[in-house]
């Protein structure tokens, strides 16, 4: 699998390819260990800590950072920001790959992954928020696949099928926003059932709202962050429109992200007020909470605003990366760092190197698939046959 991706162009042995090859090799070895020896051999999971970074990072962070797909397509098709149309395809592609590999990563974490479809076939455990998440992720993955399908269909030259897929754009976008609202918020609602385990500063009845609102921030920031990386790596693949409009997108999305961050900051404060947890802010966990609140919500909100006012694209792009880091920290806080905070240090969880290895492996696979697709299909440019067509 890896060889097929790495080979192709003139120089195969670029530094990136060598690192990618090593990561993939490591990933395959850990995969073999995980599936032959069990979860115990590859993870530090315990009876006290049933969820580690394969849930905290691969699932929670993965889904949040894949929000760019629904955010961008909603902005363009529903809110009518047509000048950002060029950004829809790369955003939908990352969304699709993000969700696809969330599902792949889930196979590592589940005890019996071959039963992944049991909730819908055997169980119907409808009282579980995980059922809601599973159903929505399954449906949304399908929606993303359909939303993305025009690109491979153009690549392969199936004009009629492509026409059908394009006609669905509007209704698929609405479906995508509905499903994303539901499962982004439900991922937060997963923790509502454990008020005695999650630190009170992070536990709140508003958790679903926090997760949904922060997914919009993650989506906006991720589109800008990816745009920056893509410009470095695939500049030659971009068409005139992509190159000329991406600065305007950075300004527009930066402004939107600043606004949503301001709202997010407000509701997070209200969360503390609603629980009357002010006194906890001076404890060590409270300091860490303030680091998240000030360093990764208030600060990027301000930096985005300054960047937009000064038209400082470099600052906005840096802030996008910083905000993405903030989302990672937030999701890990809720699932790992502030979870089981009441337990003594000896019963706490720290990831096994193989767990980190698989997470890196999954991220690498996403990058490799992205590169494979972007270098072949009309993602960063419009296919000449369909140029100027309204979607």
């Amino acid at each position, binding site marked *: 699998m890896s060889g097929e991706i790495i080979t192709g162009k003139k120089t195969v042995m670029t530094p990136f390819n060598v690192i990618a090859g090593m990561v993939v090799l490591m990933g395959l070895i850990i995969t073999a260990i995980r*599936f*032959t*020896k*069990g*979860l*115990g*051999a590859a*993870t530090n*999971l*315990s*009876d*006290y800590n*049933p*969820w580690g970074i394969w849930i905290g990072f691969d699932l929670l962070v993965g889904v949040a950072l894949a929000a760019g797909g629904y955010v961008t397509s*909603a902005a363009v*098709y*529903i*809110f*009518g920001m047509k000048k950002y149309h060029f950004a829809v395809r790369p955003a939908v592609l990352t969304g699709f790959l993000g969700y696809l590999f969330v599902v792949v990563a889930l196979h590592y*974490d*589940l*005890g*019996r*992954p071959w*039963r*992944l479809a*049991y*909730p819908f076939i*055997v*169980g*119907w*455990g409808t*009282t*579980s*928020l*995980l*059922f*809601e998440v*599973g159903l929505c992720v399954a449906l949304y993955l399908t929606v993303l696949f359909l939303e993305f399908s025009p690109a491979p269909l153009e690549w392969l030259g199936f004009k009629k099928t492509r026409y059908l897929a394009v006609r669905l754009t*509007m209704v698929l976008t*609405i479906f995508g*926003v*509905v499903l994303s*609202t*539901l499962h982004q*918020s*439900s991922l937060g*609602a*997963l*923790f*509502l*059932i*454990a*008020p*005695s*385990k999650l630190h009170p500063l992070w536990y709140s*009845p508003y958790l*679903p709202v926090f997760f949904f609102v922060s997914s919009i921030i993650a989506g906006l920031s991720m589109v800008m962050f990816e745009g920056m990386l893509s410009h470095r790596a695939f500049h030659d693949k971009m068409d005139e429109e992509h190159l000329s409009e991406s600065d305007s997108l950075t300004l527009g999305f930066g402004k939107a992200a600043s606004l949503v961050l301001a709202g997010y900051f407000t509701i997070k404060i209200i969360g503390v007020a609603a629980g009357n947890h002010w006194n906890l802010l001076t404890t060590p966990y409270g300091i860490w909470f303030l680091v998240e609140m000030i360093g990764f919500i208030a600060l990027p909100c301000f930096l985005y605003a300054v960047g937009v006012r000064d038209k400082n694209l470099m600052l906005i792009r840096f802030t996008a990366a910083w905000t993405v880091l903030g989302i990672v920290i937030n999701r890990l806080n809720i699932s790992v760092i502030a979870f089981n905070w009441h337990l003594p240090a000896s019963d706490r969880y720290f990831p096994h190197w193989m767990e980190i290895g698989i997470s890196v492996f999954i991220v690498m696979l996403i990058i490799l698939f992205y590169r494979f697709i972007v270098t072949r299909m009309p993602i960063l440019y419009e296919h000449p046959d369909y140029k100027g067509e309204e979607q």
Partner: protein
Amino acid sequence: MGISRRKFLGWIGAAGISASIGKPAGASSISQFSGFPDSKGVLHDITRCVGCRSCEDSCNKINELPEPDTLFSDQTVLAKNRRTTTKAFTVVNQYISKNASEKPVFRKIQCNHCLEPACASACFVRAFTKTPNGPVTYDPDVCVGCRYCMIACPFDIPAYEYDEPLTPRVVKCTMCAPRIEAGEIPGCVSVCPTEALTFGKRKNLLSIARERIRNNPDRYIDHVYGEYEMGGTSWLYLSGVPFHEIGMREDLGIKSGPELTSGALSIVPMIVGLWPVLLTGIYGMTKRKEKNAFIEQEGAVAAAVERANHESIKKIAAAIEKERLGKKKAMEAAEKEKEKGIK
């Protein structure tokens, strides 16, 4: 709230559709679920426990669990802070009081068989069932291994077979459900030499517990642990020392797992129902705005054209007028000339 609800039901009744709603009103309010009638439970009187570990031994044999690491007669493990594992459905821990003169306290730990189990509420394949008899049972044949039940359990009871690559299961006490089904009592209760464990109907156990507290107010803390904790549990506890001193959390609250999540769940269908309406509305407004902008633009162009036309017509008219006047003048001049010539 009660009045408005009764009113509401009244309106429905007046409309003559109450029959079609189905369920009797008694089953439609959260506060009215009181659990299965005659459901069984166990009362653990911690003041009577001597830490002999015979319950652990009996549990191990009846449930055919793997050999323990040390013999059940080994009393040294009591001092370790142990929890339930894949090898032990139940463990007994020793708690030394800070006050050295007091005797150590022993507490048995196992699944509390909640009346509204958080594990069952969290399970997306319905692997957990609250049976009418009282036990919360687990079905490994449908379990996917997501371990959300372990996240949800406020008592940290379920354990997982992490070292099993193909058939890992969640492991927890079954309250000897098959034995109860057959009219027997759970294994641990049956061997307890000091009657620290009492099996019976939960409501009877509650009166026994209250009676013990009433008769020996100095011996007991005035609280039956499990009566309301997390919506109530089938296992109930009496203690002579505050519960938090013997590792039992007193900050769990009385809300059950299903209550904690039902609010978020109830929002889901509202979003499904209304988001498409809202989004389509926004889309419609966007389109209308675009169309208006287009029409306005068109209108502006037409007006400009018309204005331009109007001006040119004026010019032409003026030119024609000018010419006409010019001609007239010339004719008049010619006429005058003529007249002059005639004179």
